[in-house]
């Protein structure tokens, strides 16, 4: 008969504060680089506006001749969306689970992408100053090299401004469940990704839209396949019982027998460490990643480790460890 102690409330607040600080640390630097690059390129576009032809040349063929045009306004909008909003969304989305071993690389990718877009925008536009007809604009491939160099600097900056995450505290040893001789136990846990359903649904709708009025069959087929594959990742389920670990994602269902499993442990999954979302391969082996959070990881007699992100992974690992011990004795 143990009364619940009050200190749970301050502990929860402290954890929330730590998560906020770590999120800030992961995004502040890269966002600053993205912002600076975007602001610089937009400032130059504004300053040069009166000297630029309207519309501007925005695409060039292999030999450097202009073959695609859009308005000055469209260019600025493009810059904001592709050069700033998208990389910013990328680094923010990847940092929601806080500072983690993949954060520095993510910072580099986001900052590098934003800087590259900004630099190429400036380079492509600079050569059109003083022109009245954008059709005469040229942009040789060699002109892109300074842009790549600037992007490399942007990426490197985005890398170093993200603090090094705390070293992995190491795996906490799994405490096996205490199984009685006459006990039967099964652990079932699942995780759904509502974003996956939305994205999959959008793709399927897009497929219908492509097929029906425009009769673009190839595009529709591609979108449909992509949408259906995405939808199958809507829910991931893990089940542990005396037969082993069963992993179930959409139409894909696989039992890893107890005899093939050597260890089981609960881990804290950051998608950036495992290579993203969905079915991933990384230095951690195979993983089914629905999002950041708890995951159950097993090591096998043959093949790589396997991880699946489901809630209450600690209990699943505890049960699996107990079942493994029972087979040894």
């Amino acid at each position, binding site marked *: 008969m143990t*009364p619940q102690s009050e200190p749970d409330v301050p502990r929860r607040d402290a954890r929330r504060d730590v998560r906020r600080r770590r999120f800030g640390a992961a995004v502040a630097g890269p966002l600053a680089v993205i912002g600076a690059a975007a602001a610089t390129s937009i400032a130059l576009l504004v300053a040069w506006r009166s000297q630029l032809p309207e519309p501007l040349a925005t695409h060039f063929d292999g030999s450097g001749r202009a073959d695609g045009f859009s308005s000055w306004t469209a260019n600025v909008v493009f810059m904001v969306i592709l050069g700033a909003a998208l990389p910013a969304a990328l680094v923010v989305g990847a940092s929601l689970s806080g500072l983690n071993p993949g954060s520095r690389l993510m910072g580099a990718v986001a900052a590098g992408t934003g800087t590259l877009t900004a630099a190429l925008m400036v380079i492509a536009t600079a050569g059109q100053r003083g022109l009245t007809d954008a059709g005469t604009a040229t942009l040789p491939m060699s002109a892109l090299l300074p842009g790549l160099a600037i992007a490399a600097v942007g990426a490197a900056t985005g890398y170093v401004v993200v603090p090094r995450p705390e070293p992995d505290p190491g795996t906490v040893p799994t405490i096996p469940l205490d199984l009685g001789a*006459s*006990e039967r*136990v*099964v652990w*079932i846990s699942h995780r759904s990704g509502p974003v996956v359903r939305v994205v999959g649904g959008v793709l399927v709708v897009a497929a219908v839209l492509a097929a029906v009025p425009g009769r673009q069959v190839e595009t529709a087929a591609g979108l449909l396949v992509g949408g259906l594959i995405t939808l199958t990742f809507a829910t991931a389920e893990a089940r542990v019982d*005396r037969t082993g670990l069963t992993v179930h994602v959409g139409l894909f269902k696989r039992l890893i027998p107890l005899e093939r499993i050597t260890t089981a442990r609960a881990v804290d999954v950051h998608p950036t460490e495992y290579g993203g979302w969905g079915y991933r391969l990384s230095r951690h082996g195979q993983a089914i990643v629905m999002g950041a959070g708890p995951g159950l990881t097993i090591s096998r007699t043959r093949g790589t480790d396997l991880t699946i992100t489901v809630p209450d992974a600690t209990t699943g690992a505890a049960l699996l460890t107990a079942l493994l011990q029972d087979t040894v004795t």
Partner: protein
Amino acid sequence: MLFRIDVSSRTTLYDQLAGQVRGALLRGEIASGDRLPSAHELAQSLGINIHTVLRAYGVLRDEGLIELRRGRGAIVVGEPVQGDVVTAVHRLLEAAQRNGLSLAQVHHAIDEGAT
């Protein structure tokens, strides 16, 4: 969610299973809208008769904790015990411990208070 039964216990298997679901709901491990495993899956994993699982689900449905829908399976519809009741329970247990009362005496006090 963990389903744990003891085949040597005096409590019937279906009562044990129903109790597991009630406990999980109380602890917040499952919530309204969650889907329970199919009777077939659960029976197979636990190595028991499917009718035992179906009986447990029937008990929970009669209590209004779950709904059985064709095609969707067993869905949790119940709510855990209200938060302020849980808080009051903890306060009561704290007070009992301070005064050196046993659990039986606490039950007696509740019965007295209810009359």
